[in-house]
């Protein structure tokens, strides 16, 4: 995991776990690493991991079972996939607009890219 600079680290940890759930690395009902394990793995403060975990739970992405650990909630994979895709799309659209591409031109650029890639 590569941390970027200015975003709060707890939200980067959240994004990291969400991405893992979206691609199915962590499946529904699967236990995710404990705060301590995650802290050691990513080499970040356990309080920061704990804050990320609390926020994930609040958003309904994980469920804590007392004494057992933290588990991926049901049916969140597809939603997360869409959420992340939306984020990427917004980012792309914004950057294309900054470059001066119209919506139609942006779609065309994307279409051309896929056409070329398919050849």
């Amino acid at each position: 995991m590569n941390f970027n600079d200015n975003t709060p680290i707890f939200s980067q940890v959240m994004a990291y776990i969400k991405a893992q759930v979206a691609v199915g690395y962590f499946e529904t009902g699967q236990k995710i690493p404990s705060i301590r394990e995650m802290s050691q793995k990513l080499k970040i403060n356990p309080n920061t991991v704990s804050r990320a975990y609390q926020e994930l739970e609040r958003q309904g992405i994980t469920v804590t079972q007392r004494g057992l650990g933290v588990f991926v909630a049901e049916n969140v994979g597809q939603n997360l996939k869409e959420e992340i895709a939306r984020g990427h799309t917004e980012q792309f659209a914004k950057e294309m607009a900054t470059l001066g591409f119209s919506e139609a031109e942006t779609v065309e650029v994307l279409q051309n890219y896929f056409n070329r890639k398919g050849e």
Partner: protein
Amino acid sequence: MDNILSVTELTKSYGRKKVLQGTTFTLPVGRLVGLMGPNASGKTTMFNIISGLTKFRRGSVTIDGVPVGVATRSLVSYMPDKNFLYKYMTAKDALGFYKDFFPDFNEKTADELCVSLGIEKDEKVKKMSKGTVEKLLLLLTLSRKTKLYLLDEPLGGIDPLAKTKIVDTILGQFTGKDSTMVLSTHLLRDTEKLFDYALYLKDGQIIKSGEADTLRQENNKTLEEIYVEVYSE
């Protein structure tokens, strides 16, 4: 929230040189704190005062509500930035020394850390490299079970591999609950993700402090960028 450390209007001079000039701050319990500041900003003096080694003239310092003094010695485990172990000692002697001195010294933790840090118990301090001495001092400091840990430049002047080991050890021993660790450093690249609380010391005063993620968000900068901004003014 409970504060483990409370420093009010602390002033300390060496002769005419003012080192701390009315420093005031508190530290919440259960944090891994970065005490930031360039050389000669007063970090070591601050640590010496909090650990009860240096007297101060004005202001107050309380640890867990107790004024700093003999009574707080058992609450603070301090790793100074200079080696204080006798050269003729082996690592084993040093462990024995700590065990005799501090009733809260946990031998099991010490043994585990010896293994994970690769400390040879029979090696003499004078034969050890700088990195190994640093690891040994860290091991001794973290093997005590106390409320407040002060680590003065634990990452200074050592190679990247030893640094990684030391960071892992600090994270491994930090519980995030009832104990607080304060690390002084100016190597922010290595510690950016480690801290959840930051103190910036400049010319003997704390000029910025707070939750690391909040500081990042408010300033839209990393702790390191804030450091550059604060000290280049």
